């Protein structure tokens, strides 16, 4: 009972710091705006982002019928933009979730079990970390084929090792604390100690890491789609820029180039600000800026 009260008061304390953090509030605001856009997409635009327009609708500048104009196939840019936020958020959240979960499981096991298991798992993370991330993601997506699921898989494969390292070092310090000793004394098994005693203590770190991961996953998706490796059935912001760039009309069609780039920039800024604010609260020494 007193433990849960402690947790609630700690949470209240964190929230009070968070409210004072201008960065964090701005970041959260940006993220909420994009989430609302993603959720209410069909309400905001009558157009289907993939539906081709009639011949007189090709590359039209912003007007009352198409508020952000159309692309070279007559598709509505505003619809692509709004639906594109779904792709970014979906890829960002899923890839971050998978990377952090995988990284945490490996970090927890390596850190707690130690010995040969630790050595093996850490060699594995080293190998993935030493490979240049973007070229590796490019190769994997080119080989796996173009789909949203594959993009998520590819980003997660590259993403987990860093979190495994961070979680492992956290586990190594928690392992030495008296309450773990106490748990061992009352006969708790290895599995129980890892998941019931140590795991709850690394959750805050996982969340802070996770939010920053979302930012980098969104960036990765944008670059891969820009390079022509995105899912053709789900238009994302990176893919819009790929289409605009390879159509060769960027000099003319500014309405096609500006919105997706600004959206990518803003959403990444949002997650970076929020992630940094959370990091500052939980882990004052590891702030990013």
């Amino acid at each position: 009972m007193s433990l849960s009260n402690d947790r609630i008061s700690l949470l209240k304390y964190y929230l009070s710091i968070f409210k004072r953090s201008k960065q964090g509030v701005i970041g959260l605001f940006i993220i909420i705006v994009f989430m609302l856009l993603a959720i209410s997409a069909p309400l905001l635009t009558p157009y289907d982002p993939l539906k081709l327009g009639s011949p007189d609708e090709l590359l039209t500048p912003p007007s009352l019928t198409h508020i952000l104009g159309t692309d070279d196939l007559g598709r509505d840019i505003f619809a692509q933009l709004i639906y594109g936020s779904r792709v970014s958020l979906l890829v960002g959240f899923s890839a971050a979730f998978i990377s952090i979960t995988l990284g945490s499981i490996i970090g927890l096991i390596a850190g707690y079990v130690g010995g040969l298991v630790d050595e093996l798992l850490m060699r594995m993370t080293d190998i993935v970390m030493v490979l240049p991330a973007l070229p590796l993601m490019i190769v994997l997506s080119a080989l796996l084929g173009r789909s949203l699921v594959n993009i998520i898989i590819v980003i997660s494969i590259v993403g987990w090792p860093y979190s495994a390292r961070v979680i492992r070092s956290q586990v190594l310090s928690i392992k030495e604390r008296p309450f773990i000793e106490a748990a061992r004394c009352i006969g708790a098994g290895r599995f129980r100690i890892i998941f019931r005693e140590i795991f709850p203590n690394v959750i805050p770190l996982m969340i802070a890491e996770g939010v920053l991961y979302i930012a980098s996953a969104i960036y990765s998706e944008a670059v891969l789609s820009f390079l022509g490796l995105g899912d053709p059935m789900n238009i994302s912001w990176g893919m819009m820029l790929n289409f605009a760039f390879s159509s060769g009309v960027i000099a003319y069609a500014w309405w096609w180039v500006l919105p997706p780039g600004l959206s990518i920039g803003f959403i990444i800024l949002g997650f970076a600000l929020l992630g940094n604010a959370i990091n500052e609260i939980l882990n004052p020494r590891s702030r990013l800026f």
Partner: protein
Amino acid sequence: MSKGQVKYILKKVLSLLITLYIVITINFFLFRIMPGNAVRLMFLDPRVSKENIDLMMKKFGLDKPLWMQYLIYIRETVSGNLGISFWKNEPVINIIMSRLPQTIILLTIAIIVSTSLGIILGAYSAWRKGSLTDSVILGLSLIAYSIPSFWNGILLLLVFSFWLNLFPLGGTGSIGISHASLMEQILDFAWHSTLPLITLILYYLGGYVMIMRNSMLDVLSEDYIVAAYAKGLSDKRILWRHAVRNALLPVTTITALNFGWMIAGVIEVEVVFSWPGVGRLVYDAIIQRDYPLLQGAFLIIAISVIIANFISDIIYGFLDPRIRKG
């Protein structure tokens, strides 16, 4: 060299060799086992000539069992044979080597400029923490960090090449420039590389400013800075001689460990500005579905990154007395 240093280097060399071996192995299995099986695609690709298929069959023993193919692959890779490109029908290694210098020039200039600028701006920002200048520097770095560099490049291209007509649309040199004097060639190259360099520098700069600022803030709270003030040293001397020098260490580590990140920026920039380097080659390989070229380019990039990390590890070992003596 002391005994400790020799031991340190030997250990690093051994781990380098193991890493290289594993990377070559991963590269082999990635392209053989995953859905986009490069060998199977070779037989299906109409662009590959009959002679080249026969040549590849013989050279890489493609009719032999997989484990033998693997051993042959390692032997061939070590001797520099990376197969034949589907798209250009010439050896992959020749194509990559002809593209490598352009990437190295771009990367070197961008790293030098962005580290120097990042160190100065980050140090100044931390020194004037809370001031308007600090907020402006920090805000701009954060924006530079958030904006994808390929989009940044497209915007620069849009404004300075298409609208203002000040810079070329891409490439490294004008057609027919080879007859001009050396000076004119250099100027032409500089003219072509301005926008790619600006894009790349902006991409690196945000990160550097934030790391340097952070590192400076840590250093400035140390006791020896207070001691320096107590001795009556001038602000300028404390800033440059005491604080900046000690804050540099994390920045060098970050540079050393982030070649992978830097390569990512180069790929984006080379694609946007049609810069004929290795990054653009990766893009061309994707577009052309040229798997041997993609495989070769990936291997060369990975090996370069690993060797660059190795070299900076060694240099770092000599700089840091804790490792030097240990």
